């Protein structure tokens, strides 16, 4: 079984990479890949600069910048996984072939998300380097809390894969218009996860949503491990690193159970309703 999982993940990652990248030269592909995340960062920097007249040394800027940089992965993995369902079913008409092949469809979807994770990593690294070099981002190689950073990042990838599985499972039941569904959900979570502003800025009634999603804790832990000299979220300051990590692990486990349950339900419904090979382009 493990061998099936591994081969499904590996093959889908390779396929995802080919679909994403083999239409052009690597340098042009890299430019296309980093343009969008860098532009999103540029928008945020301009919002900030408009109000503060370019005071980039403020802890609030570091909070926002690092959260936004790592949030790139959320959009990449969720879009990569859900778009693969739509693309394979509606455009390449191969989803039914994947279903009858000896692969585990969950790991296949995860593989497609992995391809996007790998390609978008370049954008995240470039964003962080620009922030450090030009925007006074307080990240110093010697003060980074490496064990916390690596543990948080690894658990975060699992959480993102589960979120991606949940969204791509729902995409199985949606028509071709769902191409933007993953991206839309990622954009919505951008609001609630405190990625670019502390959760206490949200109206009181919306704050529990932010505290219920693992991404909030993931981003906070990443900030704490990277920005040793800058304060993190004012909302979570009372919680120590270990406590925060514990909450993050528990919420990731709950999310995983929910994602696997959603997949089982959507997969069965899609098979029953004949949606695996449905073409809905209007």
């Amino acid at each position: 079984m493990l061998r099936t999982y591994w081969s499904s993940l590996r093959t889908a990652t390779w396929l995802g990479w080919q679909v994403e990248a083999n239409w052009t030269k690597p340098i042009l592909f890299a430019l296309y890949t980093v343009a969008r995340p860098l532009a999103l960062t540029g928008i945020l920097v301009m919002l900030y600069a408009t109000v503060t007249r370019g005071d980039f040394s403020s802890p609030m800027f570091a909070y926002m910048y690092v959260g936004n940089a790592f949030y790139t992965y959320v959009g990449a993995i969720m879009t990569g996984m859900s778009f693969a369902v739509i693309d394979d079913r509606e455009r390449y008409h191969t989803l039914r072939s994947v279903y009858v092949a000896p692969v585990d469809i969950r790991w296949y979807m995860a593989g497609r998300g992995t391809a996007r994770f790998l390609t978008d990593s370049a954008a995240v690294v470039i964003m962080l380097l620009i922030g450090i070099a030009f925007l006074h981002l307080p990240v110093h190689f010697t003060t980074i809390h490496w064990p916390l950073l690596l543990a948080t990042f690894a658990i975060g990838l699992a959480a993102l894969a589960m979120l991606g599985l949940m969204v791509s499972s729902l995409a199985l039941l949606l028509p071709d218009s769902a191409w933007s569904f993953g991206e839309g959900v990622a954009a919505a979570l951008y609001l609630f996860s405190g990625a670019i502003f502390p959760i206490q800025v949200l109206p009181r009634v919306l704050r529990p949503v932010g505290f219920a999603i693992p991404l909030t804790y993931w981003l906070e832990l990443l900030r704490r491990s990277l920005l040793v000299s800058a304060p993190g979220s004012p909302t979570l300051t009372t919680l120590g690193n270990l406590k925060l990590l514990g909450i993050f692990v528990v919420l990731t486990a709950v999310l995983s159970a929910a994602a696997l349950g959603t997949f089982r339900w959507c997969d069965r419904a899609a098979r029953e309703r004949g949606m695996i090979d449905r073409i809905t382009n209007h």
Partner: protein
Amino acid sequence: MIPRIHKDTGWRLFVRTVMGRAYSRAVGYQRQLSRLAIEVGLPLVALMAYIFVYRAIGGSQDLIGYVILGGAMSWFWVNVIWSMASQFFWERQIGNLALYIIAPGSMMAILLGMALGGMVLAAVRAGLIIVLGSLLFHISYAVSSVPLLILVFFLTMAALYAMGMMSASLFLLFGREARYFIDVAQEPVYLISGTYFPLRSLNAWIAGVASLIPLTLGLDALRQIVFARSAALGFLSPKIESAILLGLALIFLAAARRSLGYMERLAVAEGKLTEHRA
């Protein structure tokens, strides 16, 4: 005896083609109302993230209004890119492009129909975003001139959709890179056109180059008119921006007509433009 079928020609055929293409677009969306909910709800939530950033760093209410207006107007840009410029690319994928070229109606009429149908739907979404956003965040508007507001809006639409018509031929030259090109035509355009912040915050040279995209000047002019208190944040005066938008609309329309004619000749002579290239 076969009954005679009435056939329109000339301008009547042009108008019928426009109406036919616009109708199918509008009806297609009516059948997917869930899509409207997704396409209004999720972007509104995403816009709120920028609004809360402004709140977190002490931005004014007018800047929050800038985000809402920018987010609403960006729907027209999304519509132009996805449903105008790249539409022939998608139509080729599903086999409709060849039918368009074979049909007796003009390609300009088909594009115009797509523009009209798409414009109505984008206007519904944009309107919902403005209404909901303004209510949720208590945005007040101080309109300096209603006639100028209407003029700027329609000039922006004309220039935007003419640009989409012109780009439709360009997209036919694309293969899989089309999707990446669309990506590059979204957030990077929002950045250089000042969709979520005053255009004046950008370097004047960047703003000048970005003015070739009608969204840039259209949005800047609209903001100066509806947020009269913040008119000082404008790039050029709304009247100059209107004149430039008119010029852009005329240039883009002429270029669209020329490039579509070229594309049709190429399709017939070489048969390459209608082939499916996944």
